[in-house]
């Protein structure tokens, strides 16, 4: 792990001054400064990267957020905003010379409106809580990251979170109508609106997925959608992963956009089945889960078409959920894939590349070769509908050198994702984790533009510094160790 502690713009904040100033603006129960209180904040869901902050602020209202940001701006102190800390890219990892701004106490659902199908929530509200609050109206909030019982809307906005249903229902950016955001200077911006668009530039799109680098969100208006009357899932098993990949393309080619389309390879089903007993075919090289939702008529029609396509693609076994209980059981395995893999290995490292679907077989063959190269096992779960692959690299943190191997394994997968025409991250964000791979995905002029955009919002670079967008210096260093894009990084690709 690279050393993270570096001062921003050469300013060395005096901790005592900072704490005194924060004590002036926050009640005593809203400020943590003792080591044992700070410890729980030292990392997010990516536990391999840790850093202790100088202080943790837990404001209870927007005025306090403004005051904390203004104070930090004056003192030149970095600020890392944090929701539930479930992120998987280290985006909420503290800065050693900065404060963590936790939005945990912004946990109120301010309004759920059936007629306009919107909810206004504070950023610390959990994703699933929004759907629960909307359920009495027959509505729900569509983006459903697998951490939805814990992750917050503020974090979802920062990461542009997806989920298993985003091929049909979109990402966070497609489901958020408005945010209220405080700049590092303490200025409040209303971005977007309850109307379908807002005057001026689409700042909503720019801010969603900006990983806490542009502002701190204090309120979110989300779109709610009617809960489908029925959902059914088809489970198909295949003898060959390439065949399963072709089946995904065939479903799309048949004009079907399933509500969910997920694939798991054999190591993944083997890890999951003893844990969840979902009834997965353990002899299959890959299984597909294809969900259809809508009115009963719509679902019946679509399921019939999906069955025909999958049979035509050589599925060796097909099962259609016959009840809600069975549907949830089929999904339970997929949703439990991460913890299930966590049971069979001391540690695992989850990757998040996206690739064009047609390159899937190539990618899986390459990952198999990397397993041999690094001497580590890998299970693959795949949001097949939108090309978002989550390889779970298994390693043992207590074994010297294992983490470094896992990290290199992951980096190679991400760089291959770019080489295959995809991206280093589909939904988990860059954070600190993929900062080097950003140098592979983007060239200097794009990175310079990103830095300039950042400066338009935060010219002292105090909000979540050293995350998401690498410095050109860092890329130059990384480039000396790695061959850059365009220079045939994978000359042996064709043998896969």
């Amino acid at each position, binding site marked *: 792990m690279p050393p993270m502690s570096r001062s921003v713009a050469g300013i060395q904040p005096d901790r005592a001054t900072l704490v005194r100033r924060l004590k002036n603006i926050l009640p005593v129960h809203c400020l943590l400064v003792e080591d044992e209180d700070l410890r729980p904040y030292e990392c997010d869901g990516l536990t391999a990267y840790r850093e202790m902050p100088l202080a943790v602020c837990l404001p209870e209202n927007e005025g306090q957020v403004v005051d904390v940001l203004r104070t930090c701006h004056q003192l030149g102190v970095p600020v890392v905003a944090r929701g539930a800390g479930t992120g998987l890219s280290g985006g909420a990892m503290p800065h050693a010379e900065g404060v963590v701004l936790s939005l945990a106490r912004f946990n109120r659902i301010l309004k759920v409106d059936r007629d306009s199908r919107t909810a206004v929530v504070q950023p610390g509200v959990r994703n699933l809580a929004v759907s629960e609050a909307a359920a009495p109206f027959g509505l729900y909030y569509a983006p459903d990251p697998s951490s939805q019982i814990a992750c917050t809307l503020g974090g979802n906005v920062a990461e542009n979170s997806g989920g298993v249903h985003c091929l049909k229902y979109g990402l966070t950016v497609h489901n958020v109508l408005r945010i209220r955001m405080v700049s590092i200077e303490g200025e409040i911006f209303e971005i977007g*609106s309850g109307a379908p668009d807002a005057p001026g530039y689409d700042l909503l799109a720019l801010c969603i997925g900006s990983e806490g680098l542009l502002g701190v969100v204090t309120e979110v208006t989300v779109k709610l959608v009617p809960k489908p009357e029925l959902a059914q899932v088809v489970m198909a098993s295949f003898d060959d992963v390439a065949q399963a990949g072709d089946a995904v393309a065939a479903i*799309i080619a048949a*004009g079907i956009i399933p509500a969910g389309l997920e694939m798991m390879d054999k190591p993944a089903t083997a890890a999951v089945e003893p844990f969840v007993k979902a009834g997965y075919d353990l002899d299959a090289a890959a299984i597909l889960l294809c969900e259809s939702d809508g009115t009963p008529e719509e679902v019946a029609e679509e399921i019939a078409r999906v069955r025909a396509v999958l049979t035509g693609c050589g599925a060796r076994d097909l099962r259609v959920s016959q009840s809600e209980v069975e549907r949830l059981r089929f999904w339970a395995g997929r949703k439990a894939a991460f913890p299930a893999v966590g049971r069979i290995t001391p540690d695992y490292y989850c990757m998040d590349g996206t690739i064009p679907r047609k390159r899937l077989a190539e990618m899986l063959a390459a990952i198999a070769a990397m397993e041999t190269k690094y001497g580590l096992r890998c299970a693959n779960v795949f949001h097949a509908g939108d090309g978002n692959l989550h390889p779970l690299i298994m390693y043992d943190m207590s074994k010297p050198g294992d983490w470094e191997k896992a990290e290199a394994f992951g980096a190679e997968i991400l760089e291959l994702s770019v080489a295959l025409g995809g991206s280093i991250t589909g939904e988990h964000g860059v954070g600190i984790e993929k900062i080097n791979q950003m140098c592979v995905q983007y060239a200097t002029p794009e990175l310079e533009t990103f830095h300039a955009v950042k400066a338009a919002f935060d010219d002292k670079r105090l909000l979540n510094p050293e995350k998401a967008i690498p410095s050109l210096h860092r890329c130059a260093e990384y480039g000396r160790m790695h061959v850059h894009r365009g220079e045939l990084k994978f000359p042996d690709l064709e043998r896969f």
Partner: protein
Amino acid sequence: MTLDEIVAAVRAAHAGHTPLRLRGAGSKDFYGGLLAGEVLDLSGHRGIVDYEPTELYVTAKCGTPLTEIEAALAEHGQMLACEPPRFAGATLGGCVAAGLSGPRRMQAGAVRDFVLGVKLVDGRGQVLNFGGQVMKNVAGYDVSRLIAGSLGTLGVIAEATLKVLPKPVAETTLEFACAADEAVRRLNDWGAQPLPVSASFWHEGRLWLRLSGAAAAVDAAARKLGGKALADAGCIWEDIREQRHAAFVAPVLWRVALPSTAPTLAVDGLQAIEWGGALRWYAGEIDAAAIRAAASAAGGHATLYRAPESLRCRVDPFTPLPPALLALHRRLKKVFDPAGILNPGRLYAEF
């Protein structure tokens, strides 16, 4: 016209501080601030670069007519689901730059929702690639979607990649008789139910509703909703998409975007209601301050969409921004176009 030629033209304009007016087919010249600058004709930079039906994307150069793209998609049963207006030869570049969406917007999403990536020539003449061809990509700021609707003020959209979707298997249109208030009430009520409503349009006491989806679902919804089924309603939706319908012909037309539940504004001249109640069109000599105040009080905004030059030179086309937001816009404009040469004044007079 090649990418190199676009780059050369922008570099020369940057060096000489010459304002450029970016133009595809010119089909939306009426929209936004008054045209200024030397025309940079992009219609020659055309052609589909890449279309992968099973990957659900199409990449094309900016001057490619939407009709050409849609013809290619139709061969594979696919469409541009945001249904952007084609007007007279509208191009992909103009479609993304203006960000105008059509009847299917509330069900399927707006142009910005379908933008996956852009190749941009910024105001210095640098070629920048943002986004890509995959559905999910959260690496870096989402600049491609920021570009949608920026009216060419942040860069020349040399190429764009849009997500495409399959055409629905079945569509049918229902007609109801009702007043505007009642239409808004019904549309919101239907919107909160799992019904396959893909478009709506109210004009002079009549409400049309388009249902799209699986044949069985469309039939079931049509039976449930009642109304009068129109056997061949394709023309209505085409006329609305192309704004050839009688509701759009007035010389002065205001576009008012609102929360879908907003009550009827206390403004005369309501012509049409689209998008489940969220888009309303007003015609006639309306006081700009009055309609903007009414829209703003209802949680939305009013755009002077089409007007003679005598009015356009006196009234800002778009609702003025609060000072802090305007300052942020100017800083972003400077990031992409430091010399201020790209479509100056087309979005706001200040930049």
